[in-house]
């Protein structure tokens, strides 16, 4: 009950901020930016794998969104609408840039720390040993291996995996953001998970 009322109040507050931004209130626009900047930046970073590009793309996303905020009619959530702009900008950027300049996953291997992280990761993912996923995700080397594998996935698979498994969006929201059918979302997610698993197994074997 308390959660529900907090959610309603947050939604009302967001509606108010959107309306004020539509009237040209830059202060309200600033509050909307603060509300979503971390999630948007994080998502873009996971897709494009470069912090500088991600910062630039996040800025461009907000600028575009706020310039066109009068077009936002509330048919979807503001978050979905914003992410639609951000993800499309990022995908276009990736296409222009050409193939992602991902390093070989093996390139950074060889140090004692990465070997240890690699072993822990393999033990965890291949269900050979009990492990703490939260602790593993905090491990810099293990995280690097996962993110680099993610970066080697095809763009369309990487995007759905980021939106679903990292960002936690529903199939419907992903379909709206990418403007694709629900069935396509499901099949892409299946392929993306399997693809990532193959990549990680190949590295960690």
């Amino acid at each position: 009950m308390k959660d529900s009322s907090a959610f309603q109040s947050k939604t009302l507050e967001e509606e108010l901020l959107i309306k004020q931004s539509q009237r040209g209130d830059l202060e309200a626009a600033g509050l909307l930016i603060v509300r979503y900047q971390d999630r948007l930046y994080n998502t873009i970073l996971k897709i494009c794998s470069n912090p500088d590009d991600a910062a630039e793309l996040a800025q461009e996303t907000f600028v575009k969104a706020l310039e066109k905020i009068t077009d936002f009619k509330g048919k979807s959530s503001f978050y979905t609408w914003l992410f639609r702009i951000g993800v499309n900008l990022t995908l276009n950027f990736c296409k222009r840039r050409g193939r992602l300049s991902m390093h070989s996953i093996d390139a950074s291997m060889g140090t004692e720390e990465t070997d240890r992280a690699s072993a822990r990761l393999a033990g965890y993912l291949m269900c050979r040993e009990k492990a703490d996923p939260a602790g593993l995700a905090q491990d810099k080397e293990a995280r690097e291996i996962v993110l680099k594998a993610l970066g080697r996935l095809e763009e369309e698979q990487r995007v759905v995996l980021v939106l679903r498994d990292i960002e936690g969006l529903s199939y419907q929201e992903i379909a709206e953001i990418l403007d694709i059918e629900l069935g396509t979302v499901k099949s892409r997610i299946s392929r993306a998970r399997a693809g990532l698993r193959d990549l990680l197994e190949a590295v960690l074997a």
Partner: protein
Amino acid sequence: MNEQEREHVDSLIHGFLDGQLNERQQTELKRLAQHNPFIRKDLHALFRQKELLGFLPIEKAPNGLKEEVLARLERRLILSMESPRPSVRTGRFVLLVRWVSAAAAMVMLPLAILGLLVLQIVKPPEPKTVPVALTAPGQTAEPLQAGEGTASGEGPVLVLGTLTFLTEHPIPLNESIKKAVVAHKLLSSASSERFEDRAVYRIQCSQRQMLSLIQMLRPVWELSSKPQFVLAGGESPARTVVVEGIRPEQMEKLIRQSSPSRLQMTASHLERLNRRGLSDVAIRVPAEETGEGERILLPAEPRLAWEKEPTELPGGMTADGPAVVLVIEVRSPSEKK
């Protein structure tokens, strides 16, 4: 397991990971996993992989992102206001028109320059004329400066200045001004311009007519919160006088002035008077001391040292008096600068 069965199992596994399975599908997957170690292994591995991705830390956006976005928005807004959108009509016809226009300009421009040069050479020199200001009788004319102008072919006119009404009732105020102009038959010598935020009237008439017009406009003062009179300083901004809260009788006093210097001086006097407030400068003499009721004494008006003649045209003057120009501006409070 054939490909179709594999796809079905995959869809069950991913549906399970995403919480999309109904009860029947969950039972089916459970049964399959119990009997097939490969399916069990797949399910477990993908479950762990998803769990790990979900635990990846959220990267914080760089500092100053908000400020940068807002700055970019402002820049784009300014640029979009400054540069109109280029025309998208770039068809053959448009290109031809542009080419012809450019060619015509190339021919016409030198011709125009040549014509001007010839005109400068051929034109007889004009005698230099200095417009003179209105002066009181018996005084020498002085060159026009601030507050002066000339009406083409009608001799010198005294440009009084700009009377601004800041009002929340622009419609009745504008109507009153128009009525006054019509009533004084000044349609031919008055002009008006309407802007989005204000209406500007330029009225040229004799001093007497202007006095009568202001008298007719007295009720208008009630509609305005801050009537203001500005006497422009011409090329010397320091000479600009702004009389805040000008009253109708003060306006009439200004209209009665016979020369630009008097106008300037009187306006400055009124500016000081209104700035300090009547209660600050007036001296009240009680009724028992005057024997004829309470009296309010105001500071003496300034007077030019060489002035011997009356500096103000008499209220009961018989002639129409010289021509004067007054600009009246009606603004709404939000647009007042």
